[in-house]
């Protein structure tokens, strides 16, 4: 039976060789649908961004938008918040995944399923929850005013970039943990035992045995979270702060509130360029991570659960 699985036999039994014209024909309908509802609209956005309101086609809309302070602030905010949230999610995700994988406790399995569930919920719920936890009338401030008798609590950061940062770290940490847990499940426990019996302290084992193994997954997870943070809208919208404007928020304000479609399209094109470049980087890193793992071990289970997992696949 095993011999049947070799690629050579597969082609002869399957009839058609891969890449036959008929296969391309079969791929056409979904591609045509995608082109109509996704690529054609994107092309129109790019075209609109080159069309100033006073007619003609030029780069003036870009010059106008780039000269605006609001745009430069939004760009700075977006990049800083995304970098901060990615760093936070990486650190928190690494710490939590290390404990779940290597200092196991009863209920750890249920916990990782809970994390999967977390990914099925929309991001803005986190901001809503944080309003009850750390808002001006929330739990934390309520505890403070009850204890000290003060009129208001000390915490008032939810409408600042810090509030957005906290919400994004919370929401995106599971995206780091999933590929990490998959990578950790591949680490040989024998290696850890050997290192420990040779006298290595836990921190040293983490640094010299576990981390090198998990580095590709960590990089892939980080790159994905960076893209998702750059594109995040729900959290920022629910924060409702006037001074926390990110690029997606600026697209929304310009198009829906100001009716300035050309300006919105310019910001959109810049945002797409930033995100797609980063996403391409993520795909490269992720496929290299999966390739490295597959190369190191040849077994049936390595094909599944690679570091290149989609954003929430299998949740």
């Amino acid at each position, binding site marked *: 039976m095993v011999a049947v699985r070799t690629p050579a036999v597969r082609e002869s039994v399957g009839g058609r060789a891969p890449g036959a014209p008929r296969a391309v024909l079969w791929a056409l309908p979904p591609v045509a649908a995608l082109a109509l509802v996704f690529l054609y609209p994107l092309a129109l956005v790019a075209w609109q961004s080159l069309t100033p309101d006073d007619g003609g086609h030029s780069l003036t809309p870009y010059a106008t938008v780039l000269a605006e302070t609001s745009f430069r602030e939004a760009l700075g905010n977006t990049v800083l918040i995304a970098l901060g949230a990615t760093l936070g999610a990486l650190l928190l995700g690494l710490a939590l995944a290390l404990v779940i994988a290597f200092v196991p406790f009863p209920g750890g399995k249920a916990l990782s399923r809970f994390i999967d569930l977390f990914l099925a919920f929309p991001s803005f719920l986190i901001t809503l929850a944080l309003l009850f*936890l750390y808002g001006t009338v929330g739990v934390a401030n309520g505890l403070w005013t009850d204890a000290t008798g003060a009129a208001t609590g000390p915490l008032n950061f939810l409408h600042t970039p810090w509030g957005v940062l906290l919400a994004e770290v919370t929401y995106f940490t599971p995206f780091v943990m999933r590929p990490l847990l998959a990578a950790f499940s591949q680490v040989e426990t024998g290696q850890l035992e050997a290192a420990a019996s040779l006298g290595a302290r836990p921190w040293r084992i983490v640094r010299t045995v576990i981390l090198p193994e998990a580095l590709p997954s960590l990089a892939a997870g980080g790159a994905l979270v960076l893209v998702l943070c750059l594109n995040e809208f729900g959290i920022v919208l629910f924060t409702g702060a006037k001074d926390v404007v990110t690029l997606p928020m600026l697209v929304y304000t310009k198009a829906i509130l100001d009716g300035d479609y050309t300006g919105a399209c310019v910001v959109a094109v810049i945002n797409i360029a930033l*995100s*797609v470049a980063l996403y391409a980087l993520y795909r490269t890193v992720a496929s290299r991570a999966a390739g490295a793992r597959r190369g190191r071990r040849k077994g049936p289970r390595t094909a599944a659960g690679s570091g290149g997992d989609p954003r929430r696949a299998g949740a």
Partner: protein
Amino acid sequence: MLVHSKAARRAVHSVFFLLFVPVFALPLLVIVAASFATNWSGALPSGATLTHYQDIVRGDSLDALVTSVLTALAASTAALTAGTWAALAAEKLGPRTRRVLDALFLLPVAVPSVVVGLSLLVAFSRPPFLLNGTPQIVITAHTVLVTAFAYQSVTAALARLDPAYEQSAAGLGARPAYVLWRVKLPLLLPSLTAAIGLCFALSMGELSATMMLYPPDWMPLPVQIFAATDRGSLFAGAALAVVLMATTLLVLLAVSRIRTRATYR
């Protein structure tokens, strides 16, 4: 096992729960607790009430829930069809064309959802396609956004599929259409139901693109939640959020039941 001494292990675990509980468990609990309250200015919510839920049953929030469910059903079905078709077609392609198809179908993940909304607004407000102001434009946006996940789940499932079944069927003289319908799709069924559950959940919670293009008579639940919190009715918003989470969970649960029944067959 990395930490061997019992005391150290306990210390690690307590740090873990100190991080985990406030960050992950508390937010969801807090929303549920707030949905039954009228006031929260201490450690615990006060003014226990069911009014928020009664308002939902009476008011137009029920319409929003129905709108969301219908949108999610339509979008996830369309996304699963397109995603599965594309994944099946990609499998037969040469490696280079295949990479192009992969990139095309994963691109919507990288493009900000707000921009997907804006692009549909720009494209379908002019001839030849006038969809602006219709429910269809919302469904289209959701379909675009979730198709990537359907495509990726089905592609991963196809890679795990043992080609021996397909080959034996073909070797016994089954036509390709018969192999697809009677062998491949049944084997893929668990992954397909998982994919549609995921797409449904994502569509239920979609806010970014929806904010750009929802018409007044087709307002999904997340928009309603935003409207509630934006005008300061945080507790009513929490009740709506609980309804959203409960519906999503119910559907995911139902889908996972289909999945286990399919694997037993």
